[in-house]
């Protein structure tokens, strides 16, 4: 890392460096079910001042068969400043994530981060709702951790195809959340049923804020509920990225801005956006 010297600056108000490129030692990198892998690394303190919803840009090492060139963005699944630990939960989908699976305990992985705008929990948001499906739950797990730390009430609705791939429900329970599981095989994951569950809660103790990630239908459901009952919320979005820092303009999506539609960078202006600002895809 470079050292700033007095002779190459005019003033002292340059932006402080807040993003770090580090080599982290792997403590664990193994499948936790048929689809998902858990990557757990020994992380330096510098990158552990991260927040829920932020992500790291991971250099997936090239192999003969898999040669990713660009880094792959991955949301934080868990972090602990005390343990010096950072976790990612990832689904193997292409060249990058497949190359990542080859890394073993004590191997080194190059991480860039923390990056992006995190989730917010406003002081007056007491009763929180998380609604997510699949790997979207990984992105929302640190939010549950933070809600627990801030002593907020959290209901998490975990949706999945079947109970075999529903890996996050226990994780959320451990973080103190009340967990409701809905699955396709049981026929409980349909949006009408999820809406019913949420509206019951709104009529009961009430919900102050809602969070989601990873599903278009869930986003639309929460946008509808948010409008009807005037409940704020946030959504974490994904987009293919190149630099991850906001320079290349690769990862733009369209957003509502008043009556206009504007393009924003998911990496820099997000990945967490206002619930009503996001456009369903």
């Amino acid at each position, binding site marked *: 890392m470079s050292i*700033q010297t007095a002779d*190459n*600056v005019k003033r002292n108000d*340059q*932006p402080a460096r807040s*993003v770090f490129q580090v080599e982290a030692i792997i403590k664990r990198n193994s499948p936790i079910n048929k689809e998902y892998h858990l990557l757990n690394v020994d992380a330096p303190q510098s990158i552990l001042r991260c927040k829920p919803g932020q992500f790291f840009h991971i250099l997936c090492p090239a192999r003969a068969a898999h040669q990713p*060139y660009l880094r792959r963005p991955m949301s934080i699944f868990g972090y602990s400043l005390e343990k010096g630990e950072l976790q990612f939960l990832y689904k193997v989908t292409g060249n990058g994530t497949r190359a990542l699976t080859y890394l073993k305990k004590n191997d080194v992985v190059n991480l860039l981060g923390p990056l992006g705008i995190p989730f917010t929990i406003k002081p007056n948001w007491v009763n929180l709702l998380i609604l997510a499906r699949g790997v979207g739950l990984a992105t929302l797990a640190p939010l549950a951790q933070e809600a627990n730390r801030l002593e907020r009430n959290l209901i998490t609705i975990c949706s999945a195809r079947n109970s075999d791939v529903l890996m996050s429900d226990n994780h959320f329970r451990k973080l103190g959340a009340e967990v409701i599981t809905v699955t396709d095989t049981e026929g409980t994951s349909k949006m009408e049923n999820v809406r019913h569950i949420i509206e019951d809660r709104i009529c009961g103790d009430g919900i102050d804020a809602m969070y989601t990630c990873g599903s278009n239908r869930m986003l639309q459901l929460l946008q509808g509920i948010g409008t009807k009952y005037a409940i704020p919320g946030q959504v974490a979005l994904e987009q293919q990225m*190149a630099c991850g820092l906001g320079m*290349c303009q690769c990862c733009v999506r369209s957003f509502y801005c008043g009556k206009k539609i504007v393009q924003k960078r998911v990496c820099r202006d997000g990945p967490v956006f206002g619930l009503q600002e996001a456009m369903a895809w």
Partner: protein
Amino acid sequence: MVNLRTRIGDLILKNPIMPASGTFSEELADVIDIGQLGAHVTKTITEEKREGNPTPRICEVNGSILNSIGIPSKGVEHFIKHTIPFYNQYDVPLVTSISAHTSDDFARLCNKVTVPGVAAIEVNISCPNIDDDGKAFAMRPSATKTVVQKVRSSSDLPLWVKLSPNTGETVEVALVAEDAGADALVVSNTMLAMSIDITSRKPRLGNLMGGLSGPSLKPIALRMAYQCAKSVRIPVIGCGGISTVYDVIEYLIAGVKAVQIGTATFVHPSTMINILSDLEDYLREQNIRNLNDIIGTVQDANTIDAVVFMETAP
């Protein structure tokens, strides 16, 4: 102590390492000390606010990338109000990259960015010329001549003209750019390319085609930089596929006075800073005290000019 200073016309840079337009913005200061760079080259701006191309805007191809970003721009007013003051915190020359669709629009924008705080203007003539048939200015000597003459008459600042590899007339384009008043050439922009997903059978870029950059572009851009350095008297700045100090050395030997680094920064944000320290180490190890002593040292004396300038192979 190695002297890394290099001269681009009237501008003296403290070292030859700078970013390539489009791969650099204020955000890189979150990761590295951008005050160490030889120059700051901004992302191309247009006069008006402009959205870019449809996504996907970037795709990977074997150790390189294709991009079709489409020059999203916040417009010249935003640039003058926000971008220039940001970079003026640093004692590093600011090079403003500009683009337009006609020669007159180029000249007007060039004039608008001729303001205190801007050290040079990079003229990105790889965009479509709508006065003509929509082909890029940089593809043909005639269009290059018109646009460079017009921007020349609209600004007193040094003009760096950025060439395109999408031409069969590299030397002719370079010569007319020099003749029309360019102070330096940047060689080169990305090369038009395509990639198709064989499963979905869809092109992998939203805009169907895009520019190739990264290590696989290097031999092409290096060839062009060499041809240009051989042909013109103005400085040539090499750009294309640089990711290590050895790439920089190769370009310097080919005859360039400085280099731009782009795609590699997307993978390793600290590439430019690392290369800068590696360059100093390399020159010291080679007992070269002055950067200028390596520039243009390619051993081609026994090669006849016809071979040097041939545009076809073999």
